[in-house]
C-alpha cells in the first residue's frame, strides 16, 4: 500500500468526525433543537402581536442560528484536545491548516446544514412569505459556513482555557456582526419586496475571505493550544 496522500488524510478527518457525529445523533439534535427553542422563546418573551413578530422574524431567526452555531462550536476541538487526538493531528505529516479545514467542513455538515434545512419551518412561525423563506435559506447557506470558519478560530484559541464556552462567545460574537447584519438584512429586504442580491453576494464574499484566512488562523491557534 502507498501511504495516504494529503487528500486521503483530509477525507479521513472529515469522515471520522462525521461518523463520531452520527454516533452521537443526540448531539446533532441538540444544536437543532436549541435553534428551534431559542427562536420560539421570543414570541413568549415579546408577546404574540403578528405584525411585531413579522418584523422581528428574520432578525430573531438569524440570531438564533448564530447562537446555535456558537453552542456547537464548543465541541469542535474540545474532544480531540482532551483525548490527545489533536496532538496527533499536529504531529501528522500534513499541513495542519488543511486538516483543520477538514474538521471545520465536517462540523458544518453536521451542525450547520441542518439549521439551513429547518429554518423555513421557523420562518413560517414568523409569517414570512415564500420568497423570504427562500432567501432565508440562501442566506443561511452562505452565512453558516462563514460562522463555522470564524468560530473555529475562537474554538481553537479557547482550548484548554478555562471558561471556554463563555469566553468563546465573547471572542466570536462581535466578529459575527457583519454576517448577522447582511444575513438578516437579506431576508428583511426580500420580505419588504426588495432584491436581496446585494446582501447575498456580500455574504458570499465574506465566505470566500473566511475560507482563505480562517483555517490558517485556526491552525496557528491549535499549535498554540497543544504546546
Amino acid at each position, binding site marked *: *500500500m*502507498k*501511504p*495516504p496522500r494529503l487528500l*486521503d*488524510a483530509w*477525507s*479521513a*478527518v472529515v*469522515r*471520522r468526525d462525521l*461518523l*463520531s457525529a452520527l*454516533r*452521537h445523533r443526540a448531539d446533532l439534535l441538540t444544536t437543532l433543537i436549541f435553534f428551534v427553542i431559542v427562536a420560539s422563546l421570543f414570541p413568549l418573551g415579546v408577546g404574540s402581536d403578528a405584525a411585531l413578530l413579522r418584523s422581528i422574524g428574520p432578525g430573531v431567526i438569524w440570531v438564533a442560528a448564530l447562537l446555535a452555531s456558537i453552542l456547537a462550536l464548543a465541541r469542535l476541538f474540545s*474532544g480531540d484536545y*482532551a*483525548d*490527545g*487526538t489533536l*496532538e*496527533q*493531528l*499536529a*504531529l*501528522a*505529516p*500534513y*499541513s495542519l491548516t488543511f*486538516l483543520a479545514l477538514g474538521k471545520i467542513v465536517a462540523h458544518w455538515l453536521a451542525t450547520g446544514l441542518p439549521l439551513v434545512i429547518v429554518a423555513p419551518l421557523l420562518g413560517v412561525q414568523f409569517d414570512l412569505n415564500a420568497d423570504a423563506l427562500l432567501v432565508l435559506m440562501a442566506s443561511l447557506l452562505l452565512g453558516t459556513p462563514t460562522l463555522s470558519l470564524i468560530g473555529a478560530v475562537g474554538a481553537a484559541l479557547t482550548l484548554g482555557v478555562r471558561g471556554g464556552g463563555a469566553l468563546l462567545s465573547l471572542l466570536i460574537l462581535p466578529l459575527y456582526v457583519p454576517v448577522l447584519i447582511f444575513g438578516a438584512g437579506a431576508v428583511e429586504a426580500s420580505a419588504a419586496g426588495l432584491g436581496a442580491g446585494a446582501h447575498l453576494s456580500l455574504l458570499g464574499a465574506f465566505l470566500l475571505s473566511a475560507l482563505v484566512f480562517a483555517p490558517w488562523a485556526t491552525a496557528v491557534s491549535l499549535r498554540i493550544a*497543544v*504546546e
Partner: protein
Amino acid sequence: MLVISQLGCVRGERRLFSEISFEIGPHTLLEVRGPNGSGKTSLLRILCGLLHPAAGRVSWNGRDIHELGEEYRAHMAYLGHASAVKDELTAHENLRYSAATAGLAASTTDISTALDTIGLSGFQGIPCKTLSQGQRRRVAFARLYLCSARPLWILDEPFTALDAAALALTRNLLESHLRSGGMLVLTTHQEVEITSPHTQRIDLGI
C-alpha cells in the same frame, strides 16, 4: 539521526533543565529518567516539535526539526499521556482513521492484525468508551505497531495501566523496533527492562 544541542526549557517561571545535548542514532534507546516534575514530558514534547525550547535546537539529519516540519513528522511516532482514542468509535475505526490522518499505509487486515497482536481480538468492534483503562492504552499501542516503518519513536510513560501480559507484548514490540534499526525515546517510572543494542540514559534533576 536526532541531534539535540544545548537544549533549555522554562515552564511558567521555573527553569527545568538547560544545556542538554545528546545524539541518538539507529538501534539506540534513550531512557529519560527523573523524579516527578523534573521535565521529562516537557523534553519529549520538545523533541516532537510540539513545544518550543527556550534555548538550543533539535535537528534531524542535520536540519532543524521546525524547518523540516512535515518531513520530520513523517519519520516520527509519539505516544503521550493521552491515548488519542475516540470514545464513540470502535477500536478498529479508531485505528483506521488515525492511521490515515497520520499518513500511515495500513489496510484493513493490517489493522486487525495489529489489534490481535496487542490482545484486543474480541474487542475490535465495540465502542472504546466501554473499554477499561488498560484496554484503551492497548489501542494506542496498536497504532504504534502500525508505525513500524518510522525510525523514531517517542513514548511518554507508555506502560501506565497495562497488565503483565500487555507489558510483555509491548516490550517485545519496542525491542524488535530497536533491533530493526529504530530509535526510541522513553520515559517511565516503572521498572521495565528493555534490552537494546545501545542504551543511553538522561537523568533530569529537579
